[in-house]
């Protein structure tokens, strides 16, 4: 028996300098742990909540575009570039998983009564294993930020679970790729940075041809 009623629902709508009271309280809480740089979470949280965007179907379609991008990157570009060793193994494994994300999101959008976006065509500026992995790192880390940013806007709890199951895998990909290119597997420290739709488009947009 889960009590869905917040302890003080009347406070939730109470605004403090443009922030809702609950958001204000959380900021205060995070600022209180300022030692170890914990205060940095405050802006991240505000940023995640600034991600507005249509209903669930629209959010999922945005995610679907990113998954199409990742899947094409690993499965098509990966073969063109000619990878070897661990890079090749990851590209095969991760590419297959991104395809599964595409299928799951397509199904979920249809279930919602929405129309899944068509697979775009992409252009990837990668010519060898090194530039391929560098781009893989950007794409996977952007994917993590995109899902983390959109998560709180999802109305359906069921879809939130699906998005959570996917973002965890994107984060695992990101860390594995980062380690391979000798970067930190936790580029944002203790708290991953949620990205707004605008920020995601700035990173991924140039790769979408049509």
């Amino acid at each position, binding site marked *: 028996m889960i009590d869905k009623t917040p302890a003080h629902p009347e406070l939730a709508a109470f605004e403090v300098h443009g922030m809702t009271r609950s958001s204000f309280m959380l900021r205060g*809480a995070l600022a209180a742990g300022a030692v170890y740089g914990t205060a940095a979470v405050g802006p991240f949280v505000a940023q995640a909540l600034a991600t507005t965007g249509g209903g669930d179907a629209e959010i999922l379609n945005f995610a679907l575009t990113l998954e199409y991008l990742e899947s094409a990157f690993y499965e098509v570009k990966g073969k063109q570039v000619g990878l070897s060793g661990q890079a090749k193994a990851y590209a095969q494994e991760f590419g297959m998983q991104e395809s599964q994300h595409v299928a799951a999101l397509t199904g979920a959008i249809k279930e919602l009564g929405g129309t899944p976006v068509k697979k775009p065509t992409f252009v990837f500026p990668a010519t060898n294993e090194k530039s391929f992995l560098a781009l893989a790192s950007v794409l996977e880390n952007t994917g993590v930020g995109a899902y983390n940013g959109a998560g709180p806007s999802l109305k359906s709890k069921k879809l939130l679970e699906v998005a959570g199951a996917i973002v965890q895998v994107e984060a695992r990909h990101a860390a594995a790729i980062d380690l391979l290119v000798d970067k930190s597997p*936790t580029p944002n420290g203790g708290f991953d940075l949620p990205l707004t739709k605008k920020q995601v488009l700035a990173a991924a947009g140039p790769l979408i041809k049509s």
Partner: protein
Amino acid sequence: MSQDTEQQDPVAQPAGIVERLVRDDVDRKRFLKVVGGTSAAGFGAFVLAACGSSKSTTTASTTATTATTAQSGSGTGDVAILNYALTLEYLESQFYEKVIAARLFNGKVGAMLKDFGSQENEHVLALKGTVAKLGGTPVSKPRAKFPIENADQVAQLAYTVENLGASAYLGQAANIQSPEVLAAALSIHSVEARHASTLGTLVKKPVTPNGAFAVPADMSTVLAAVKPFLA
């Protein structure tokens, strides 16, 4: 409703979870079934640890009690979920403290584990502060015990612990009421996943042990799994 008499005082509940966990025995069969169901080889350490600490044959009623405890814990809202997460972060943080103190790793890996430890500590501080600001009482730090033997065994255990942490956060995402708390939990969740993946590369285990979709774990499953690590 007569069932209501069985419910705990919601305020006292979060602190009670760990205490009852230590006291109550885990139903071994149920636990093995749950652990077996995840099909992750890394959980072997947990199976052994759990069997070692299971003193007597348990009954269905103790299992029910454990399950009820966890469920009514989540029933107290975001504060209970945050306190549950805080307990897990306290354990992770102490784990890394002990690992670092044992000086089993040096160089790049040693530095990385130190990073992970301080990130778990940041999670502790953030969760503790959030519980307090939401008007709740942060749970006290549980006393942890971890088998620290050698580098290989510790790395395997770290992989297991981080995978469990990631699945625990995933298991609570849909239960969180406040979008602010959810945003914070998500930003921690993917960091736990990064830790798990990194440790996977270290112990040559899958970085995505459940394939394309990570599997969530509910509160009673997670609490049963960490029970061997509570002193």
